[in-house]
Each structure stands twice: as C-alpha cells, then as structure tokens.
C-alpha cells in the first residue's frame, strides 16, 4: 500500500494505491483465479489430481494469465478465449504458463470473447467454465482478502475507487468496507468500451456481469465514471513521478481518484484508496510512457488496455 498523496490535486485529500501487480502472476486477478479454482475443487467440479481436466475462460488478459498459472501448478489444461486486440505481452504470458489460446474477434472485445466461450462451453459440456463474470467466488476473494487488507492498512478510508471489469473488486471490497463503515463511498472507473466495441447488433446485446446484478452492484456503487485513454495514459505517466510503474488501467483509476479529490467540498478532508491492478510490463509495447501521446491514444483505441 503506497501513499500517492504527492499526486493528489487537493491538499486535504490523501490517496493510497494498493499495488496488485506484486502478486505472483502479476495482477489482482491472481486472487480470483485461486478462488475460482479452489471453489470448483470444493464443489467437485474439478477433481485435484485427476488428469485431462479442461477449463475454458474468456479473458482479455489478466484473468487468463492468473488462471494459466494456477492451472499449470494444479495440472489442469486451460483454454483462454482471447480477443485478438490485446497487447502482445498478454498473449506471451498466457504462453509462458502453458495456456491454449482461442482467438475471438478484436472488434467484438470482451463481449465477443464471452459469447464465444459460452458457445464453446455449450458444445463441450465436459469442459469446466468457471465464468468469472458470473461466479461468486470472484467477489468472494475480494471480500475475504482484498477488503480486509485495505481495512487493516487504511482504516480511515473514506472512498474506495477501482476499475470496473467483472465488478468483482468493487462488489467484494465495496461490500466489505461498507459493512465496516457504511459512509465509505465506492466509485467505479471504466474505460469507454461502449464506444470502442462495434460488434453489438442492438442494445439488447449489451451485457451486465451477472454477479453485479445478483450481488446488488447498483446499491454498492456510489459513482461510476468513464476515464478516457488520453487521461489514463497521462496519469500512468504521472505515477512514475512517485516511482510507480503501473498498467494503464491503474492510470485511469488514479485519474478517477484525482477527480474525486477535486470534488471533495472545500475544507473537508478525505482518504481515497485505489487499486493498481497490474504493473506496466505488459504494456511496454504500447509505447504509453515514451511515444507521442496522441499516437498512443490512437493505438489504445484498437487495443484493450483496461
């Protein structure tokens, strides 16, 4: 947990960053990968030690990588449905841990990967589809660990700000923190994916993660804000000023924290805790830190970075 208050635009607002890139496979998703697989083991869906068990999961990156590590360790075979437009390092990390990659159209983004994984799972019912978007073991990991860790480190937290992907972090940490202190505000930061993904045929093709609906996400969240690529990259760069080399979603979340800090009423103080989902290594190929920012922003429109 790092004090990033030097970057806070409001002198009365502290900002803390929890560095999840320091997990074994490099991201916050390590937590849910273990939780998903262990829950499946406890439920008898996966049988430890039995050979030739196959898992399939849609993932644009970190969950696939985390699951690949866990499956490699436990002897399960993992197939990851991966949109083609992810940075090369994500694909490489999947290969490092022995996952099989099945490509889904980049233009359809994560929606397309989910659809393809669902279709393949239906055709191959013997494969195990843990489905991070619908599996309560996902937010449960955050409720059991991420939330309590934050509470132990920063009990004066007034605002928790994290990225919205499956909604697991926001549900698990947000739910835990609000039980401890109902006044804590939970803000979701999201990329403008709805603008980048052209593969929707109609609005009913839209998607809300089942866990978000089932676990009362709309009640847990207090704000939801889009942060665009340029601002995300600017803040990712700014984090290096305090020695932090983090992924682009982490920059987006910090941009959101800055907005939150600016909106705190005059004279009031606040303590914001944010998550840095991963470190910057997997994004070096995007040139986010070094290239002309408008060029990077254009590239970012075609690549899933969040």
């Amino acid at each position, binding site marked *: 947990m790092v004090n990033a208050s030097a970057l806070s635009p409001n002198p009365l607002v502290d900002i803390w960053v929890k560095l999840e890139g320091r997990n074994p496979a490099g991201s916050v998703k390590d937590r849910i990968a273990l939780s998903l697989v262990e829950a499946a083991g406890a439920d008898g869906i996966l049988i430890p030690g039995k050979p030739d068990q196959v898992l399939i999961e849609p993932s644009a990156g970190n969950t696939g990588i985390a699951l690949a590590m866990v499956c490699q360790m436990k002897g399960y075979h993992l197939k990851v449905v991966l949109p083609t437009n992810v940075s090369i390092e994500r694909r490489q990390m999947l290969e490092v841990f022995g996952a099989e990659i099945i490509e889904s159209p980049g233009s359809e983004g994560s929606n397309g990967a989910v659809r393809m994984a669902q279709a393949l799972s239906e055709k191959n019912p013997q494969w195990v589809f843990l489905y991070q978007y619908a599996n309560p073991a996902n937010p449960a990991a955050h409720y059991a660990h991420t939330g309590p860790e934050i509470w132990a480190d920063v009990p004066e937290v007034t605002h928790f700000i994290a990225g919205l992907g499956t909604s697991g972090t926001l549900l698990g940490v947000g739910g835990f923190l609000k039980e401890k202190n109902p006044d804590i505000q939970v803000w979701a930061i999201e990329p403008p994916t709805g603008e980048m993904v052209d593969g929707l045929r109609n609005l009913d093709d839209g998607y809300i993660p089942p866990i978000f609906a089932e676990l009362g996400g709309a009640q847990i969240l207090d704000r*939801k804000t889009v942060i665009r690529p340029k601002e995300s990259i600017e803040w990712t760069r700014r984090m290096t000023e305090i020695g932090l080399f983090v992924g682009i979603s982490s920059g987006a979340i910090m941009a959101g924290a800055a907005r939150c800090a600016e909106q705190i009423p005059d004279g009031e103080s606040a303590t914001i805790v944010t998550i840095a989902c991963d470190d910057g290594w997997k994004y070096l190929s995007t040139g986010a830190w070094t290239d002309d920012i408008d060029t990077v922003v254009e590239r970012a429109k075609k690549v899933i970075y969040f």
Partner: protein
Amino acid sequence: MSVAVRLPTVLRPHAGGQAVVEISGATIGEVLTTLIGDFPGLNGQVIGEDGTLNKFVNIYVNDDDVRYLQQLETPVKDGDEISILPAVAGGAA
C-alpha cells in the same frame, strides 16, 4: 440548455447516421424526450415503456453515469456532453 449527445454506433442509423447531435433540455429526461421526438426510431431503445432507462444502456453526463447521480432527473447545463453507451462486458478481465 443545449448539450451534445453522443450516440453509440448501434443507434446512429436512427439519427440519420449522426454520431453527435445537439439537443436542448434541462435534465437528462428532457434531453432524451427531445432526442426521441427528433428521431422517433430511437423510441423504446433507450427508455422502456415504463419510462425507465433500458438496463443495457448507460447514460453519462461528462463521463459520470447518471444512474449514480439523479438518474433521469440529473440536471444538465450548456456545453455538457451526454454519452449514450451500451453496457458491455468489462475491461481486460
């Protein structure tokens, strides 16, 4: 109040292919009513028959989701940017 409303790709055909349209209104509800009045093909897509927002649609005022502000009562001011976006599977999960 005059605001810019950005339409998602999937709705643009109903607005003559436009990606952004200027609409008047004091609240999100008024802006949407005017928008649907101008482009009747949008009827039923964004707001359901019961007058509430389609659950697969998100509306943002200056990038803040109105569901967490005052929903359809969220006030808007001159120059605000409204985005209508479909709910999509999130991020690089």
